[in-house]
Structures are given as C-alpha cells and as structure tokens.
C-alpha cells in the first residue's frame, strides 16, 4: 500500500517537473564493464592515498573499467552512513561500500541488503590466510558478508620518551596498577597523565572500551557481547571505576579536542600517555615525527597479549549495478597485492597473515607480528562488536558521563546496558 502511494507521488512529481519546464538529464545505464562505483569515507589523507594504491592494482587488472570513488567524509563516516543509508533504501546501492568489519554490518545484513560472500573466501583461499579468530568474528550464521582490507589496533599506549624520562618512567606499564602509578608520576612532573579528546564522544568511549577489556580480561569482555557477562554486574562496575580514575588524570579542556589535538599534547610533551588506535602513528609520521624519539608505543596496559582490532572492509550490496566489476574489486581487496598496496599508506597492517612486511614501517612490523600471535578481540566503538545503534547509544552514554564530570558510575553502567539492548533491538 505504501508503495502505490509512493508511486503516485512520484508520478505527480514527474508531472510537476515537466510543467515547470525543467528537463532532467538522465545518464544512460552504464555498461557493466565500463564503470564501477565504490562508496567510502576515505576522502583525504593517508586513507585516500592508500585507497588509490589499491585502485591502481584494480585498474591494472581491469583496464576497461572506469573507477569511481563516491566519498562522503565527516568524522568516521558520520555523513557517509547517512548518505549510504538513503541510497540503499532508495534501491540505488553503490557497487561496493566501505564499512567496519563485524557488527557494524549487522543492520545491513538483517535488512537483507548485502550478498553472502562466503564462496569467495573458499575460492580465493582467504579462509586460510585470514586468522581464524577474525573469520569467526565476521561470520554471521555461517555466512560472511564483507572482505576486510586492513587491521587497525585499538589498544595501543603512546607516549613521548623525553617526557617519560623526565617523569622518571623507565619502562612501559604492563598492568593497570603500573599504569596508574605512572599517571601519578606524570602528574608529579607537572603534566596531565593522560591525553583525552572529547569531540564527538568516540575517543573517550574508545578509552572506556579498552579499560573494560583491561579490567575484566578478554573472556569476560567478549561475554559482554554474547550475554554471558552482565553490563550491570561487578566486572563492569570495576571497569568504570578504573575509567573514572584514569579520567581524573586527563588534560583540562579535553571536551572539545579532536584526537589529533590530544595526540599533539603527547608528542609535544605536554601530556603523558595517550590511548588511541594505531592510526595515531600514521598521523605523526605524516607530520614528520620519528618513532622512538618523538613518540613511542606499547600494547595498552592490562591488555598485553590481546589485540583489540578493528577492520575496514568492503561489501557487495544486493542489487549492485555492476556486480562483476564489484566481485573483481573484492578479489583485489582480499589479495596480498591489494592489501600491501593499501596498508602501508593507510598506516594499518594487512588482515592477511602473509603480507610482505618489508613494505611496512617499524611500528606496523611489530603490530603484524602481534597480529599473528595475540588473542584477537574486537573493538566496540569501531564497529567490530557493536552495530551502529549500539555505538551511537554507547558513545552518547559515555559523552553524558564525561561531560557530567564523570561522577555517575551507576548511571553509566545503566546507559551501557541500554546501549547493548539498543543494538539487539
């Protein structure tokens, strides 16, 4: 019934347009082989450069296809998701779109908007070269709906060696106790122990995500997302308490800093530690800073031996106009050549375990080594374990707590529980 009323309006609109005398020029439907459109939020910086690298590989294999990158930027895809949504619902999908691998795809999968790619994993041999933990995490009811092109690590601790030496810190903290002791040392040396960035809420939520993992360990943490650990139980309460304590060492005026501003405080020696994903290293490298002298890193305390990952991936929407070209693209995305063209510029590692490490910088080399041996756990705020609805509510809950002066622990636990429920609805 809704459809027919819609058609009526559309027809009326068509008449109206004709009456106003405005012709609409519609391009003729492009030949399957001549055009191919992906939708990303990689519009600038290392992301765009990396994507170009992968596109070059694709073009070499598909010389007759014109490649179009429909990019809509805006803080971690804020606008992109909105525009993508409107296109999918108008049955105007791109041939392939970018999304974080894992639960972020949940809504699209449940809405029946994505094709199952499992057969591609077998035919391309990806089921052997991607770590089994990763395959497990992106499989929904036995089916896989996306191809991961990279891996970022979320639980990384960054600091400035000179500032640490000045504060009397000689080695990276391994446990949370050592971490808090070091925060105190930074504070005594006259700088805030922890750099925080509140703009858009997600970087604070990122901190909480790590802190929950560090406090309760990987098993319990995964339990949060399969229902075996309660959001209102003692584990989360303890995590929030640690989170609260960590926040109290934060820099002033964090509320409206974006993460690069907070990162700048660390590299300038004006703040101690920084918990941020490893894209921080890419930003600093491009600013001309040197790993080892201007900044250094370690696995975030309490989570050594655990690799909290997030991954960008590409999909095949149902009804993609250039399906063959899209499948060719997905093959490039999953290939060693494609991933090694993309990742060194993007500042992430390949999702494959057989990448050519000589192409990567020192940080990424060590990350790749950890990727092979560590326990893998997905990131909540970057779409691996949480879908869009969960993330939105999770970030808002954390934003509320943080802007309220981080006092209401019980309220935060309640909001997080509600966020988890929102994700299931």
């Amino acid at each position, binding site marked *: 019934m809704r459809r027919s009323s819609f058609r009526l309006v559309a027809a009326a*609109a068509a008449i109206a347009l004709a009456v106003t005398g405005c012709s609409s020029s519609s391009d003729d439907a492009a030949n399957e082989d001549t055009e191919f459109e992906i939708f990303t939020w990689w519009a600038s910086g290392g992301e765009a450069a990396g994507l170009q690298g992968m596109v070059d590989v694709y073009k070499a294999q598909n010389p007759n296809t014109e490649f179009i990158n429909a990019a809509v930027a805006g803080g971690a895809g804020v606008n992109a998701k909105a525009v993508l949504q409107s296109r999918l619902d108008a049955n105007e999908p791109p041939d392939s779109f970018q999304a974080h691998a894992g639960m972020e795809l949940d809504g699209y999968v449940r809405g*029946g908007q994505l094709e199952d790619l499992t057969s591609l994993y077998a035919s391309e041999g990806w089921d052997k070269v991607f770590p089994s933990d990763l395959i497990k995490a992106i499989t929904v009811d036995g089916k896989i709906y996306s191809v991961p092109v990279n891996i970022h690590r979320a639980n990384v601790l960054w600091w400035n060696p000179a500032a640490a030496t000045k504060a009397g810190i000689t080695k990276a903290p391994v446990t949370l106790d050592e971490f808090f002791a070091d925060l105190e040392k930074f504070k005594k040396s006259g700088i805030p122990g922890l750099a925080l960035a509140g*703009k858009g*809420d997600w970087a604070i939520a990122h901190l909480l995500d790590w802190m929950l993992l560090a406090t309760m360990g990987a098993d319990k943490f995964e339990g949060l997302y399969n229902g075996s650990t309660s959001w209102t139980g003692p584990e989360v309460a303890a995590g929030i308490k640690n989170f609260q304590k960590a926040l109290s060492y934060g820099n002033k*005026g964090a509320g*409206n*800093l974006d993460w690069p501003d907070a990162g700048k405080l660390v590299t300038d020696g004006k703040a101690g530690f920084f918990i941020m994903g490893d894209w921080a290293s890419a930003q600093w490298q491009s600013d001309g800073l040197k790993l080892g002298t201007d900044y250094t890193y370690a696995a975030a305390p309490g989570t050594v031996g655990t690799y909290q990952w997030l991954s960008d991936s590409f999909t095949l929407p149902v009804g993609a106009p250039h399906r063959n070209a899209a499948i060719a693209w997905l093959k490039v995305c999953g290939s060693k050549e494609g991933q090694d063209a993309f990742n060194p510029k993007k500042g992430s590692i390949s999702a494959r375990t057989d990448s050519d490490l000589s192409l990567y910088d020192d940080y990424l080399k060590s990350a790749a080594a950890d990727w092979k041996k560590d326990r893998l756990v997905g990131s909540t705020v970057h779409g691996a374990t949480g*879908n869009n609805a969960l993330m*939105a509510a999770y970030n808002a809950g954390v934003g*509320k707590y943080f802007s309220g002066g981080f006092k209401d622990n019980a309220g935060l636990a309640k909001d997080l529980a509600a966020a988890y429920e929102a994700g299931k609805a």
Partner: protein
Amino acid sequence: MSKIVKNKRSLSARLGGLLFVLPSILVVMIFVYGLILWSVNVSLTNQNSGTKKAIEYVGLKNYTDLVADERFTHSLSNLVKFTVVFILGALVTGFIMSLLLEKGIKGEGFFRSFYLYPMAISFIAMGTVFNWLLNSARDEEAGGLNLALQKIGLGFLQNDWYVSERGSMYAMALPAIWQMSGYVLALFLAGFRGIPDDMREAARVDGASESQIYRHVLFPQLTPTLLTILIILGHISMKAFDLIIGINGKSYVTQVVAVYMWEATFDKRDYAKGTSIAIVLLIMIAVVVVPYLRYNNKQQAYR
C-alpha cells in the same frame, strides 16, 4: 477607482493569474506538503530499515515513546537553552550595535558591512575555527578565546565554553550570535530610520531628554521589528544543525533535536522514530511561525 477597475477584470484574466502560478502551487504542494505528509505517515508506523520487520501502523506510539526518551528530552532541553541564549544574545548585541550606529557616524558603511558578512559564510566552513576558538583549555594550555582573554588581561573570564554539561548550549549560542547579530542590526537600523525625524524633533521641542526620547518615542515604534526578529531567529534556532555538527560533531553534550533526529534515522536506522522527531520539530516551528504568517496575511488583506 481601483474598485471599479477590479469589476472590469474578466474572469479569464483572473484565471490567467492562477494559471501562471499553478506550476509553483503544485510543486510546493508536492514537495513541501506532500513530503511532510509522507513523513507523518512514516512516523505512525514501526518502519525500521535495520530490521526486516513487516511495516505496520502503531498509532502515536513513536510520539509517546519520545516523551519517555531521556535522550530526546535532553536534546530538547539543550535546544531550549540554546534558543533562549541565542535569541537574547543576538537581540541584545544587534540592538546595541544599532544604537551605536543609529544616529549616523563617520565610517558607518565600513562597520555595517563587516558586521553583516558572517551571514555570507556557511557553518560547514566555520566549524573548525569555532571549535578552536571555543576550546576549553585554560592558562598555559589555552588556545582559543581563553588565550585571547588572558592576553587582554581578562584571564578570569576563561571558562569551559560548550564542554561542561551546565554551560554547553549557552556557549554554543556564541557562534550563532556571531553570525546573526549583524542581521538583527540591519533590521533594527531599518526600524529606527523608518521613524520620521519629526517625531524626535517634536519630543525634543517638548523638552524631553535624549534617553526619554528613546524610551518613550523610538522604542515603542520598534515593536513590529522586534516581532519579526523573534520569528526569524526563532525558526533558525530550532533548525540548528550545521552549526552544531560543524563545531562539535554529534557529541552528546551539545546534541539538539535536529542532531538527535539524524542519529535516530541514520545510526539506529529507525525511520519511524526519526520522522516523528522531525514532525515534533516541525510542529514546534509551526507553533511559532503560523500565527505570525496569519497575522501577516491579515495585514496584507487590509493594504
């Protein structure tokens, strides 16, 4: 005389008028009112693009749910705070500016055009810069306005701007005031200068002091201007979106109704909820604007 001519007007001429605006009428009917109805229709269902649920009508459930939704009431109270500060702020600054310029001063054109130029720039372009200026770091760490305040010796005025939950929306109104007070100035200036000089002169002759002239002669004449300004600022304020997204993203602390609607629609993929928020917003705007339009319409009729 005009009455006589009116009667002479043939039916075809009058129909001709209608014929010429008919395309526009149809377009407005479809693309404004038709699409609003469409949204109303969606808001009465359970349509959620993230699930494959069959779409069915749920009556006013989405609206009643909003009342209990803490996130919605939060964004609504943010919007109210923002609106009050923005309207008062723009009104007061614009009014003061018009008082300063009203009598004419050398270089008036120069000041006036600079005061107005913020209206020419989009907030997509101004977002980053205002994010910087309203940075809440203080003292040595300060970077934005807080640093500027220190430099001119007003360091004690430094504050958190829009970051603290208490003060967030008040500070968020500053950029909006920056953009709109030049406009208010222009409207007031037009109001002042529409008052015949004779009225001032007469009051002066009667021995009224300058301040009495303003209070008793000039200000009452500005009431219609004031009404217009309130309507314009009011609806701009309620639609606030670009400005807030541009400066602070979707952060909880500065979330207003339009931003929450965005989140509901595109992150939660809950179209029913998104459209019901949009309709609430539309009703809020209509409550303010429609009486004004009716009043305006009546004025026209008497012309």
